[in-house]
């Protein structure tokens, strides 16, 4: 009886989780199925055909030749890469005095930083855009300025600063004192003693900043005027306009654009799903 109960319970759990898993990936599977259907197949067929009758890569090749995916990919890499590096450096720099030093105005700085958490970017994006325009950080000036406009508004945020501050708080003070006695400057203490000790937190911050920056759509779609600087999400959205009724190409293009982040996710999966990211909950 006991055995029967635990078997039926296991069955129930697996059945539920398999259902949820399938629902989670079905939209992508259906996109893949559509992308692989041959030119003679009716993609609107009733009943829908799940496995393509004439499976083909032609749609992928076709969309690849018309859309500069490599360019969009590189743009995304540049933007996400620099955003991550800046976030790591700036957060770790600002977090150090907030965790360890006494100085006039500390409270003000602390609460001012905290206040930025409550300001949604969507509510201030218009003035941010006007400032970026005033600073000439747009792609109509040149591509370096265009990149700057994409990167700098997201170069640091309060979450990163507080995350790093928490990490620094956990390090015993004796470490710094010992380094100081050994003749390290305060910058050397930060760089050579503290940063190596918070590597796991830096990794978490890097990964989550990367994901956020990689998927960002609203801001690039506001500032970019030229396709030369399109990031992948903007390029993917553009597919809809280019191939208005050609769902085979739209589907194939969407799949191609998803491959890089999929590879990244599988490679870094332990950071996402093993519960190590307790401190990285973002709002």
């Amino acid at each position: 009886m006991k055995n029967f109960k635990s078997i039926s319970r296991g069955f129930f759990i697996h059945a539920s989780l398999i259902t949820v898993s399938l629902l989670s990936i079905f939209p992508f599977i259906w996109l893949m199925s559509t992308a692989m259907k041959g030119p003679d197949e009716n993609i609107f067929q009733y009943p829908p055909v799940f496995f393509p009758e004439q499976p083909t890569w032609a749609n992928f090749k076709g969309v690849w030749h018309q859309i500069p995916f490599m360019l969009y990919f590189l743009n995304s890499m540049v933007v996400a890469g620099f955003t991550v590096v800046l976030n790591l450096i700036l957060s770790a720099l600002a977090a150090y005095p907030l965790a360890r030093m006494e100085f006039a105005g500390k409270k003000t700085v602390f609460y001012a930083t905290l206040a930025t958490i409550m300001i949604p970017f969507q509510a201030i994006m218009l003035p941010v855009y006007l400032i970026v325009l005033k600073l000439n950080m747009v792609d109509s000036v040149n591509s370096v300025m265009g990149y700057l406009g994409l990167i700098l508004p997201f170069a640091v945020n309060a979450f990163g600063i507080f995350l790093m501050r928490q990490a620094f708080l956990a390090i015993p003070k004796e470490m710094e004192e010992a380094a100081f006695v050994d003749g390290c400057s305060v910058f050397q203490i930060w760089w050579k003693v503290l940063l190596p000790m918070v590597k796991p937190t830096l990794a978490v911050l890097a990964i989550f900043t990367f994901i956020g920056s990689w998927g960002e759509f609203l801001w690039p779609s506001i500032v970019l005027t030229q396709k030369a600087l399109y990031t992948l999400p903007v390029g993917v959205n553009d597919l809809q306009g280019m191939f208005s009724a050609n769902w085979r190409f739209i589907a194939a293009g969407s799949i191609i654009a998803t491959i890089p982040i999929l590879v990244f996710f599988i490679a870094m999966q332990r950071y996402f799903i093993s519960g190590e990211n307790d401190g990285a909950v973002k709002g």
Partner: protein
Amino acid sequence: MYKYYKKYVPYLFLLPAAVILVLFFFIPFFETIILSFFDYNSNIYHPAFVSLDNYITLLKSPVFYKVLLNTFIYLIAAVPFLVVFPLIIAILINQKIRGITLYKILIYLPVIVSIVVAAIAFKWLYAQQGILNYVMDLFHIPPVGWLTDPNAALYSVILVTVWKGIGYYMMIYLSALMGVPKDLYEACDVDGANPITKHLTVTLPHLMPTIGLVTMISSISAMKVFVEIYVMTKGGPLDSSKTIVYYIYERAFENLDLGIASAASVILLVIVLVMSILNFTLFENKQYQL
């Protein structure tokens, strides 16, 4: 502890982050408020000070009411699902069973994939002759204009937000579940409690702070929803799926009506501010204490 740094050193460390935060958070914050008192509609190069006119215009505008209502529906419809589903899934997954990692990867996948791709994938499911209407047909329900019927569009978009958020909140719950003392479950087993009683009496009370946190995070992100709407409906048909951020975007960047857009932004700021303050006072996080 003696000081090993000069007086100005802390400010040097703070400076780079301060420049960014001032330039791209604080100045825009105050500029939003200032812009909301100016009229850009008559002449964009010579805005005129109109005090509260923009707010009055908004409050008199039926479209803005529709937008506020839609935003509210978004909140009310999406948040309960995002609080409850991920919790149930997290409890199911938090067992000693095979294939946990695979389940987690698959359920987390929507979180990782670009929201633009997700919206396109759903647009395809929602097509008039799409697979979802085929499923409806199997149950003898007439086809639904998922994104073209003003009564359905908003909910179709909400479904995408819910679908994309489940994995994220599941992971938050999972890390909270690790903190529930194991011996309490064992005590339940000794008492012969069934699994449902077990979770109601042990898991739920322990997870209340996390449930509160998820409620707050998902509410604030529901207020900020944009991409799903932009990719799938552009706020249509007949403004039926237009929420506040899309409205701000449209006013600011399509109609160049900077004053009205800023007034709507201030309203959004106030709503999110109230939610955040609630969040901090109710579920104070040690990370944010000096």
